[in-house]
């Protein structure tokens, strides 16, 4: 079984190899003629103003936080789903309660306005 996971590593390295090879191939035949105006940032043909590396809206951060909560919960649900056949009624009720608690959390975030994209 462990040997099968070797395939993941091999696929990643072969993929990187092939992509880098095409980059190399393209380097051999493409023209190379840079000048400062060409290498400027694209801003609809205006002179670019300032850097783009500034602070961004923290909406993105809030959604990422909610996502982490739900994703961790998915990690709990996967083993439950796989073993559901053997676990019986107890696991069913447990998980329904678990999902309802999560729903409570979701509605809390909803009421607090965390799910609103401004």
């Amino acid at each position, binding site marked *: 079984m462990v040997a099968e996971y*070797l395939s993941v590593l091999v696929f990643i390295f072969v993929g990187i190899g092939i*992509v880098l090879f*095409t980059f190399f191939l*393209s380097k051999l035949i493409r023209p*190379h*003629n*840079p000048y400062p105006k060409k290498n400027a940032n694209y801003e609809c043909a205006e002179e670019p103003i300032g850097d783009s590396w500034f602070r961004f809206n923290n909406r993105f951060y809030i*959604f990422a936080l909610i*996502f982490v909560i739900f994703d961790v919960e998915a990690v709990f649900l996967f083993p439950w789903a796989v073993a559901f056949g053997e676990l019986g009624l107890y696991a069913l009720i447990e998980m329904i309660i678990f999902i309802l608690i999560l729903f409570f959390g979701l509605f809390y975030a909803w009421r607090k306005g965390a799910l609103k994209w*401004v």
Partner: protein
Amino acid sequence: MIAIGITVALTELLGSFGLSGGLLSVITYTILAAGTFGLLSVLALFLVWWERKVAGHMQQRFGPMRNGWHGWYQTLMDGLKLLQKEDILVATRDKVVFFWAPVMCCIAAFAAYIVIPFGDGLIVADLNIGVLYIMAITTFTVIALLMAGWGSNNKYALLGGMRSAAQVVSYEVPMVASILVVVLYAGSLSTVDIVNSQSGNFLNWNIFRLPFGPIAFITFLIAAVAEANRTPFDLAEAEQELVAGFNIEYSGMKFAMFFLAEFINLFTVSAITVILFLGGWHGFAFIPTFVWFFMKTFAIVFLLIMVRWTYPRMRVDQLMEFAWKVLVPITFLNIIVAAIFKHFGWYWEL
């Protein structure tokens, strides 16, 4: 019914040349990886052409017509053109991040094919965490898009990258929840086990498990379209507002890699849909299993192409609120319903 796996066959063939141990596995997987990459490149070329043809005919045009019969090698020519294009490098870019973003995007799309069974036994490695692995590896696309957005040092690109990250993580939750319904019935995460749990009559396909099967199928498909960054969810590269989004500063082969990854992702989500809900390679009659798999997958691809050219793009706030306020509650209620039906045995096994 169990055909000999392609990996096993190749290992035995190479083993007859006197190879053994770890080296044998590495060489086997290298050959399979190269083969998969070749297959996917050809598929992507075909899908680009097909999408353009369908889009053309839906809008009462012809689409590409010049290169060969109905422009069949148009995409190949586009690829060759991109190979010769100058690589314009923005002076203010983050060099490392800018360079590796397209590579990572491609790998994330391509590495999922380890666990996708193209037919009976046509699978590279039947990992026991199959579906979870697909979810994990395809989500790396987000990091690639963020890297592209950040590395370009361009405002449109950064906005596109951020939006796409927010979108993909939002749709990840309903997607996982839809998959859970299938896992519940298969009792395994392995893609081969999931497909085999739908064998026999076509009424055993997960989509026909009433009443939750069709719901899971539809929510999964919606989330999958969002994950693949396609219209109506292509906020990351909304042409009219962000010009091209995250790939705005990319040109030549680097742009081609993003493009390739996008179409590989289109095929991936369709293939996963077929594996999870439409019985994978199972069909009837004497037709080989991989033909069934490709027929079903191309049907889903065709559906996604039709969706792309039919619906307008959603607004970004609608998009996020749809994921959290509609899809997440529906999918989690669906899990509860599915678990109750499974527990009391209210389903058929034909």
